[in-house]
């Protein structure tokens, strides 16, 4: 029933009113004396060397985001089963075990490929592969020595 959500709508309106109200009220009452130094990006008192607009950051964050989608959807799929586990009985249990096992295979694959390793001491397999394919300086030395 949608009417169940009525109190929540009232609460949301109240919270929004509180937020916007205090922002506006504070905006009217507080001092407003901007200076160029105040308005610059905070970097411990130095002039900011570069600003992050368009800056790139580590690819690992994207990997985490993609993995999150897989596992979050898995969790969401577990919810209907969790509620009906007793009615679905053995059939449901086996079915969900198969489902979890399938995602688990992907999980193990990602783990082995180093997708779960956050910048630790050692290279991840992907990085090691890339490093071994690239002609390293050490090999050149070896050739010269030979």
């Amino acid at each position, binding site marked *: 029933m949608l009417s*169940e*959500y*009525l*109190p*929540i709508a009232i*609460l*949301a309106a*109240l*919270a*929004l009113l*509180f*937020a916007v109200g*205090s*922002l506006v009220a*504070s*905006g009217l*009452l*507080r*001092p*407003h*004396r901007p200076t160029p130094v*105040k*308005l*610059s*990006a*905070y*970097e*411990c008192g130095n002039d*900011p060397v*570069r*600003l*992050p607009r368009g*800056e790139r*950051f580590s690819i690992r*964050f994207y990997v*985490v*985001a993609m*993995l*999150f989608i897989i*596992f*979050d959807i898995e*969790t*969401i799929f*577990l*919810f209907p*089963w*969790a*509620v009906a*586990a*007793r009615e679905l*009985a*053995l059939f*449901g*249990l086996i079915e*969900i075990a198969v489902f979890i096992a399938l995602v*688990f295979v992907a999980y193990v694959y990602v*783990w082995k490929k180093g997708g*779960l390793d*956050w910048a*630790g001491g050692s290279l991840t397999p992907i990085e090691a592969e890339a490093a071994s394919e690239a002609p390293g300086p050490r090999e050149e030395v070896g050739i010269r020595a030979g």
Partner: protein
Amino acid sequence: MDALDWALLVARVVAVFAALLVAVMLTIWFERKVIADFQTRTGPLRAGPRGILITLADGIKLFFKEGILPAMVDRPVYLIAPVIAMLPAFLAFAVVPFGTSVTLFGREVPFQVADLNVGILWILAMTSMGVYAVVLAGWASGSNYPLLGAVRSSAQMISYEVGMGLAIVAVLTYSGELSMTGVIEAQSRVWNVIPQFPAFVVFLIGGLAETNRPPFDLAEAESELVAGFHTEYSGIRFAMFFLGEYLNTVTVAAVATTLFLGGWRGPWFDGFAPWLGPLLWFVVKVVAVLYVFVLIRATLPRMRYDRLMNFGWKVLIPFGLVWVLLTGAVVVLPQEIGRRGVLLAGAAVLGLVLLASFVAPLVQRRREVAS
């Protein structure tokens, strides 16, 4: 619905709203006092008796502080982010039952804003909205520290959300209910914390990480990121992030109470104000969970980021998955093959695991010798 129903409904919602604000005020004071005790300081003393009004004083101070709007921000997003931080925090609490009900003017007023039949999903949905505030605030600030803090903490929050979700799935499987009242109903004999203790621990860890509380407060690791995603926020806008964060903390404690600690259940005198007992029990349990949170903050140092991610992905998630399956087996199998069958099967699995743990080192040693 007539006028009285409407009046009671609005009054109920306003009361919960006000109570949440007061709860946040008291939680911050409580945390500061307890941490001060741990460090043999006195903590806040001046504002009100024992400094209980310190949060109010801080709030008023922040309200009248200059709100700097830095030059390089993305204006609309920068201004909206604090509101996004606060709204879902309020809404998540809406489905938590904080007592039974009270009869006023011949009408029954439930101690809950809304008893949604998808209660737990609602909480998950609202807590995941918190990520948006962090990402938008960090990105819109157009500054280095906020961006780093935002990217970091969004990765952290989504990683631990999965673990927390799995803990909730286990509880749901065990109680077979999706609404918060149903989950409390299912705990009439024994609290979920006993049969579902591992899920409780996973939920608490996930909850700490979701709310960016120590030892998972890498979003605002002041030793490396100044203040993380809200570095460029000041005045009332910063106060909103702060409010949202503590609201989330209170909500996580309340949800932990509901899912694992029996909610408002507890012994009470017969006939004397039957609504008061459950309410008091609920508050006592929430404060107990909050105390554990503060205890953890006072005890543990901040985690290193790579360890944090490794723990979330390599420990919490597989453990959660296994625990969900195990719970499912415990719930389903007794109706299929009887209790004795389950015990036998369990013993067989345990035996196999033990055998494997004996054999595996032997095989490995042989392989090492061979090589």
